[in-house]
């Protein structure tokens, strides 16, 4: 199976899937939590917080990459602390790529999550309470089942975005073949080096994956409850 794809393509593809997968998982937890918090909490700065958290969606990825590099680099406030305390350096690692991809795709998860949670009829949750069900059980039995489709649609878009992440990833994780060279970076370098065949193969793979993800997102859009 690998004979028709040049070697760098496979490791780039697998790495991209790994990084995008981890970033999406991270965003699922963080994005749902933040979405739930913003849907329920009532405090004066709520909408301002929402706007700030949406910023990664409108900022150029290179700007985000620069902020992350400055923050997580060896001499950065967070990076120096991580290095000191845990001996961890995130720059030039696939974990750093995960962070870059998560930050960039975060708004794509928390905004639909917030909308999905707000869309759940509060009266249903009240009904659950009166019936004697604990708050946690209400979340897992009433709120989440009614909100998960909205969250999932956002999650798939976030996955596609994380898969295609380039600017921030290049700055933070660099381009180490097999370690941090994702599909987008591999394509960029193949084009720079005039390796058109390689570039074409990589572009084809990336496009196919993205199309697949978008089709899946379309099928999961809310409003398709079936009779059981």
């Amino acid at each position: 199976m690998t004979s028709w794809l040049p070697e760098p393509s496979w490791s780039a593809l697998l790495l991209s899937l790994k990084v995008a997968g981890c970033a999406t998982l991270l965003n699922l937890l963080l994005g749902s939590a933040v979405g739930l918090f913003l849907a329920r909490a009532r405090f004066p700065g709520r909408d301002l917080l929402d706007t700030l958290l949406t910023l990664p969606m409108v900022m150029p990825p290179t700007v985000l990459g620069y902020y992350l590099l400055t923050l997580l680099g060896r001499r950065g406030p967070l990076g120096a602390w991580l290095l000191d305390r845990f001996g961890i350096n995130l720059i030039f690692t696939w974990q750093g790529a995960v962070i870059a991809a998560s930050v960039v795709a975060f708004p794509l998860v928390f905004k639909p999550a917030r909308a999905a949670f707000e869309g759940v009829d509060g009266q249903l949750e009240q009904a659950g309470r009166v019936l004697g069900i604990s708050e946690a059980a209400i979340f897992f039995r009433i709120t989440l089942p009614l909100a998960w489709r909205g969250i999932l649609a956002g999650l798939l878009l976030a996955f596609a975005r994380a898969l295609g992440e380039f600017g921030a990833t290049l700055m933070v994780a660099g381009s180490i073949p097999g370690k941090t060279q994702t599909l987008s970076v591999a394509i960029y370098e193949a084009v720079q080096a005039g390796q058109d065949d390689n570039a074409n193969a990589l572009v084809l793979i990336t496009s196919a994956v993205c199309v697949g993800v978008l089709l899946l997102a379309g099928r999961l859009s809310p409003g398709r409850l079936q009779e059981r």
Partner: protein
Amino acid sequence: MQVYYGELPDETLLMKTQCLTLSLCTLLLAGHAQAAEITVSAAASLTNAFKDIAHHYEAQYPGSKINFNFAASGALLQQMSKGAPVDVFASADQETMDSAIKQKLVNAADRKDFARNALVVITPTDSKLKLQQLADLQQAGIKHIALGVPASVPVGRYAQRALENAHLWTAVGSKAINTQNVRQSLDYVARGEVEAGFVYQTDAAIMPDKVKIAFSVPLDEKISYPVANTAESSNAVEARRFVNYLLSPASQAILARYGFQKP
């Protein structure tokens, strides 16, 4: 002269339309390409020196304008071969210029060498590591070395060849962090994200407060920068004039100031 009321005669209307069209065209074209405006694609390492040279050039030839495009030589070549409108191409190695000639982007006769450079290994200024030769890069204290992508960045190619000649490529190559151009390597060293990096002597001179030269890398070839006006240039006269200006004493003095050597 007769004065018409109401409709204008057809002749006058036609003349007015022609005048209007001509003015519009001139306006559009004027914004598009002034009499002496050229695009120069140059290797990243030439960024500071070339900007300086352009100032002097534009002062000496008023009305001329240089638009710059700096990147790794390999990347610039790709842009040109895909049809980017470039008038002058200055590369950091002969190999890339050879490719350009092979792809008929440049005529062999127009090629001229205009500068030389040296390859050095740099470290952050506060580095305590003892580095005096290539073999020292194997020490455990060096975890990451910034190196341009050999496929498209000349400085990376030079570095790889030097390491291969010293039979150190397998040992040291695994520590390489590939960068897209020499300035990115410089930036990584300046930030302390890597312990060492391969850059040109001229790049090291730009950030004396953040990086220091550990040692010069011996190469069995000279690092020679060629420049040429492109075959498809839309402003060949101006392009040639700039190429010749690079060889003039004024330019050479500027290049020397930045650390380049004579061609």
